[in-house]
């Protein structure tokens, strides 16, 4: 954003609440629901105040029934509402997988393009302090294989707000993944209203020696690593795709062509993570620009232990990134 933009410093939680409030004020057809999102304000306090502001019909607590939550969102969407359901943990998307993958993603297409599916499904994800194998995952990569589904995964308060507003206005299904450890993270957010388009990556740091593509919390790990590397004279470019579908390969490829070296970092397990598809596209479209193998760092391909001691060995670390970048530079 240009220097003239007036900003305020707020947390990602606050940024998300702002986006929800602004869009719900703007469009009376929006409706928000999920478990404990009403009076209680959500277990991550992301919907605090909305029940009071918009009333119990537009902001309502549901039974514990994730399949029904997502299916109902589809029914609302094709009959004139703009639903914004929440699953308490993104891991639970498995319970509504058919509803997301086959219904939200395909309803419009398979019925000949006659209906619109303006659903924004919010999914808190990530390893965040001893929550164990079914409350810590980052399942976003699965949906890159789902025609009809958009995937947003912001790393900063500003991106979260701008992307969420766009997602809500979009007439297609958007899965909105929020890393729980980012909720409390602060950042500059423009005072004025703004939108961030889906499908536009953000270069979070400009560099010439290596391209690091990272998502969510890992954008920050990558930026920290880049700053450390800079002390050794290594300039890493850090790219945050911000949405995995649509995926802004143009920005990624331009960087790769410049640096010739690629590292992809994400919190989901390495095998089948978003890095697989990104690496495959680079290997298809920019192979001869590469000076080194394409590297990926993800969590190990095992379920996430509940122990907070062991948990730390999953999430990619600054050190791992630094090591791999140095390795890449040896080619």
């Amino acid at each position, binding site marked *: 954003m240009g220097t003239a933009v007036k900003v305020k410093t707020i947390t990602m939680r606050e940024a998300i609440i702002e986006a929800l409030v602004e869009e719900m004020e703007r469009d009376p057809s929006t409706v928000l629901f999920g478990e404990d999102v009403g009076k209680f304000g959500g277990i991550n306090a992301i919907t605090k105040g909305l029940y009071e502001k918009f009333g119990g019909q537009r902001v309502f607590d549901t*039974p514990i029934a994730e399949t029904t939550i997502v*299916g109902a969102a589809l029914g609302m969407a094709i009959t004139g509402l703009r639903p914004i359901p929440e699953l308490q943990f993104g891991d639970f998307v498995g319970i509504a997988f058919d509803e997301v993958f086959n*219904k939200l993603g395909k309803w419009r297409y398979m019925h000949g393009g*006659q209906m619109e599916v303006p659903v924004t499904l919010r999914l808190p994800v990530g390893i965040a302090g001893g929550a164990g194998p079914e409350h810590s995952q980052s399942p976003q990569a699965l949906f890159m294989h789902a*025609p009809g589904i958009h995937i947003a995964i912001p790393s900063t308060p500003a991106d979260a707000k701008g992307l969420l507003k766009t997602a809500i206005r979009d*007439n297609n299904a958007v899965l909105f993944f929020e890393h729980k450890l980012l909720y409390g993270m602060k950042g500059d957010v423009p005072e004025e209203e703004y939108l961030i388009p889906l499908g536009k990556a953000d270069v979070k740091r400009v560099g010439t020696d290596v391209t690091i593509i990272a998502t969510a919390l890992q954008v920050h790990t990558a930026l920290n690593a880049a700053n450390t590397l800079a002390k050794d004279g290594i300039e890493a470019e850090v790219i945050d795709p911000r949405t995995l579908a649509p995926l802004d390969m143009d920005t990624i490829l331009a960087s790769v062509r410049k640096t010739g070296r690629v590292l992809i970092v994400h919190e989901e397990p390495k095998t089948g993570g978003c890095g697989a598809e990104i690496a495959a596209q680079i290997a298809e479209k920019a192979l001869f620009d590469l000076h080194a193998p394409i590297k990926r760092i993800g969590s190990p391909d095992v379920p996430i232990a509940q122990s907070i001691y062991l948990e730390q060995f999953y999430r990619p670390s600054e050190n791992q990134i630094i090591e791999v970048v140095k390795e890449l530079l040896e080619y």
Partner: protein
Amino acid sequence: MAEIYQKEIKLSDYRKEDLIKFYREMVKIRKFDEHLIRLMHEGKVSGFYHSGIGSESVSVGSITNILRDEDYIFYNHRGCNQKIAKGVPLSKIYGDFLGTVEGTTRGLGAGIVHSADPSRGVLGQCGTIGSQFNIVVGTAYSAKLRGTDQVSVCYFGDGAASREPLHGSLNWAGLYKLPVVYICENNGYAISSTFEETHSVREHLADWAWGYGIPSCVVDGNDVLLMQEVVKEAVERAKLGEGPTFIEAQTFRHRGHFEGDAYDYVDKAVLNDWKENRDPIKSFKKKLLENQYCTENDLLNVDEEVEYEIHAAIKVAENAPLPEPNRIFEGLYA
């Protein structure tokens, strides 16, 4: 426990033209089906087809003269019965089967499921039977929030009723007092499995709904007028904001699960009894004639008119072109 819905109905409670309309609609559905099967045999239509012959009364009884264009339905996978009763043009349904651009999907093709006509409240359907359970509470919540009196009707078979989402759906519909009418077309079979082999119920499937405090009943689905009465009451309740109703309509299928099914798992005598003595069209026709509401000739005329209409529709559907191959790249995103 779910009650058995019974009611003395006098033909004279209905206008003659409506009675003829019910007859006509049922005949239209049956002839549509028979001609579709012919088209399959001629090799013009592929994929699965689940014939709806034998339960036309469930659809006509629950839709004709009751539901408006703005009311929503989720049809089931058996027959196109409900789509036709809801007014989707025949040429468009045939077009979907034939894969021509006349179809509601403009050439993408659709079998029984995936035709849609939102202008008539036909919002499409899932390939996974029973998934409509959770979608329908969304359409009903939507109507309620928007302050309309639109009713959402959800059709499904006895087999689909065993899917887990039924529970989430009944709980939501009862809890938020949603304008949903559940119509279970219980034909005693899910493919090869009998109702008894795959269901645990106190007495009837409708008892499942009872525990939610949802008005529920069992009705002879092959009596088109009985269906009219029970559904009218349910729709009225829905419009008044009194919440959902669960109707188990008992019926039978005259043909196998899909075209090509040997259908050897059903007792011939039982099947014959349904065909001979409980065919909804035959029975209704008999009643009309016995009560001298019309002559054999009047009805023959109806049959012929419908036959003509069907042929015309097929012609329109067949004469429309197939789509361009790049049709598959259209319409994914809005």
